[in-house]
Each structure stands twice: as structure tokens, then as C-alpha cells.
């Protein structure tokens, strides 16, 4: 499974999100490859799941990947919740 963590510029914030997603992936024992980038680069990338903020999610509306929204990139409980919901869907 390919997951992309997305923020506005693709430099620092999405990397923090990516590291938190990687921690959650490990906790949930998922086989996933996590990357991070800005929203424009993400638009052209193949992925199963994109995780991003409520402000950027609309910009990825047409993407083939499932776009999951988290209000905080630092809250691992929230990340875990949206990932579990996705896995069950």
C-alpha cells in the first residue's frame, strides 16, 4: 500500500506527518510505503491513500487515491483512527 503525506510546500510539515504515519503503520502492522510531498507533486503521483489537512483536501478531489483528512499532523490517535476507518472500509 502506498501512502502519501501532503502539506503545502512539501518540506517540513508533511515530513512530520509522514513520520507519525509511519509510526501508526508500524503500530497497526500494515505493509505500507509512506512518502511526503507538496500538494502539486501529489496530484501527479500514484498512491492508495493520501493524508492531508482540511484546507488542502479539496485540491486533491479528483485524485484516484483515497484522501484522508486529519485536523492535526501531530495527533497520532487521530491518524490511527482515520487509517483504521480506511482499512475497514
Amino acid at each position, binding site marked *: 500500500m502506498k501512502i502519501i503525506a501532503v*502539506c*503545502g*510546500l*512539501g*518540506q*517540513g*510539515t508533511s*515530513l*512530520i506527518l*509522514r*513520520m507519525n504515519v*509511519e509510526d501508526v503503520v508500524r503500530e497497526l502492522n500494515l505493509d505500507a510505503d509512506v*512518502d*511526503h*510531498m*507538496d*500538494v*502539486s*507533486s501529489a496530484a501527479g503521483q500514484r498512491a492508495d491513500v493520501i493524508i492531508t*489537512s482540511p*484546507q*488542502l483536501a*479539496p*485540491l486533491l478531489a479528483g485524485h484516484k487515491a483515497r484522501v484522508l483528512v486529519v*485536523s*492535526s*499532523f*501531530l495527533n497520532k490517535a487521530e491518524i490511527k483512527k482515520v487509517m483504521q476507518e480506511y482499512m475497514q472500509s
Partner: protein
Amino acid sequence: MFAFAQWLANNIFGQPAILIGFIVLVGLLVQKKNSNQVISGTLKAIVGFLIINIGAGAIVNALNVFQPMWAEVFGLQQQSLTNFMGFDKFNSQYGGAVALIMTFGFLINVLLARFTPFKYIYLTGHMMFWTTAIFVGIVLDSVGATATVNSWALIAFFSVLMGLYWTLQPALTQRYMRRITDSDEIALGHTAASVAFLAAVVGGVVGNKEQDSESLKLPKGLDFLKDSNVVISLLMGLLYMIGAVIVGAKDTPAAQALVKQAGSNSFVLYALLQAFNFAAGIAVVLFGVRLLIGEIVPAFRGIATKIVPNARPALDCPVVFPYAPTASILGFLGAFVAALVWLIVLGKTVGYVFVPTMIVLFFHAATAGVFGNATGGARGAFIGGIITATVVAWGQWLMVTALLQSTIPDTAMWAGDSDMFILGPVVKLLGNLFKFLFV
């Protein structure tokens, strides 16, 4: 044995790309990553590093059209942007030193967090990279490009300096971070700290805390501003074209020489293309940095959590935006307006062509906006933006003309920012004080 050490020095330590690959390889092995991840991580870091140089070249070429053009607009003597190393050359020679300073500086940060009350771990990798590069550029400029520099002394000096900065800067802003985030769990690790701090202090004095920015409603339909490629292309496109129109209408021999650069084509469209090249160069550099830092920071974080598990992560500035999004926009608006004003003032007074650095102006002003709002409401946010543009405009002038002319003024013109500008003179002073160590 000596021959092997010499071989190591030339082929590993002297080749930044290889050295960085080596550092990342060790970091990945320490994290006990599988062979897949070790191979891909190491190669991504190396390639990312080399991509930076490619982008840097494009930016320099575009700036070499922007500077002379606007110098002519203000009727200045040709700004000598010649005789400087340029980031690609600088990175090829000192990129390895920068990587080592980042590594040792980070370790010093971890030690300070472990043994002092300043429990902060700086995790904003790309700012570690740029701040280190700029400061090294300043010291190398004052030492003189032709002097042979003792690399290990240089690395030791900067590792201590940066380790201190990365530990203490988050401490400076934590008081306001606690107020903004309503907790004490995260800190700010970003070079916007100085203008954010100033915004909070000034906001407390002249702001109106009663009118919080989040109670205001700002117009939507500004979604296109969310992409840095778009914003830079638009702003620089406008500036390049305006400059080209003014120069095209001028009669001076310098103006005519500039117009000839377009050959038989329209000078205005030629200039516009340079603006897009500028944006393209920045996009490439950001891509390279992302690849590189994406491998370095997880390794750093892994080490830090083992040694100082109760430390606060000092994070990239956007972490505060969600707490006061309108404040961040207000800050940016204030900075944008002030930046254009300073562009004209700097050209007309000290004869410097200010390059309005959109990325810096946005992120720093937005952060200053949030901090200014915390103490002074909407007015504090807007003033925070004005403070930011003032520091960035005059800071760029000072740094490019007096602090690193011979090394990387090109980098200062698009990546130079608040803390770098304010601490730059301090670094130059310290570099002179400790010059005996390196030369």
C-alpha cells in the same frame, strides 16, 4: 595506512554527495531498517543532494537577468553579481561540511537537551541545511575565498554554534507557543523565530488583543495562492515584466544592451520566461531538499527519542497556522504590501535591488501574524507582517552587499531569511574572533 586515509579524504569526505550517502546509510542501519529501505534511502539522499545543485544553477541564471534589469530601472551602476561562487560550486565544495555540521550540531542539540533545562529537539531539517549553508558562506567570505581553510576546525566551530542555536531558539519562542497552542508539548523550530518573537512583543504594545483575527472573515477564491510554484511565477512574472517594460522604454546604452539579450524576440516575453525559470529552479531545489531531508530527519528523530524521550520537538512554522489561520493571512498581506514598498525604497536610497522572496515572506509573515495576534489581535498580526518584510528586505540588502558577497549571495536572495539576517552579523563577528582556528 596514510594513503588510505588520504583516499578516504579525497573520495569520501571530499565528495559531499558520497559523504551524505554515507551519513544516511549509517543512520538507516542504526534505525534497523530493512535492506530495501537502506538502499533506497541512501540513494534518494544522494540524488536529492545533487538535484539541489541543478536547481541552484537555474536560479542563478534567472537572477542574472533580474538584477541588472532592475538596477537599470533605478538607474544604478551595474550591480556586480559577478565574482561569487554560486550555490552549486559552494555546495560541491562545502556540502559535505554542511552535512557534517548538521550531524554534529544535532548531536550537540541532543546532549544539551539531555543535560540542561532546554529540552528541545530541532527537527526542521531543511532549515538546518539552509541556515548552516548561509552561515558557512558568511564565514568563508570573511576568511577569503583563496585562503586554505581547516575544514575540521570549521566543522567543529559551526557544530557548536548551530547546536546552541537549535537548542536555544525554540526556548526563546516557547512562552508564546504555550499561549498559541494552549499546551507545552510542541515548540517552534524555524528561522522565523526572530520576527515571530518581535511580532509578539510589538503586538503586546501596539495591538488590540480584544479584536482577535479569527473573528474576521476574509474572502475565499484565493485557492491558487496555495501552490508556491504559482505564487512565485505570478509575483516574479509581474516584477520581471514590469522591469522589462520600463527598461525597454529607456534610451540608455545599458538598457539597450539588456534588450539585445532577447535577440530578435520580445524583451518582455524573454523576461517573463526568466521569471518562470526562476520558479522552476526553486521547484527543483525544493524537490532535492525534500528527498535529502526526508532521509536525514527520521534518522535524527530516531536518535533523539532514544536519548531524550521527554524533549519537545521543535517544528516547522506551519504547525502554528491552524491555531489562527486568518492571522497568518493578515501577516502575509502586511508583509506583501511592505515588501513592495521596501523594494522601491531600497532601490531609490541604497541602490539595492531587493528580490521579494515569496516563500520566506509567506512563511515568516504568517508565523509572525499568528504570534502578533496572540498578543495584539488582528492589528498585531498585520503589524507582524510589516515587521517581517522590513527584516527580510533590509536583511537581504545587508547580507548580499556586506556579509557573503564572494560566496553565495544568490542563495541569500531567495533562501535568506529572518534569523539568518539577524544573526548573520553575529556569526561574522564570531568567525573573525575564531579565525585563527580555521586558517
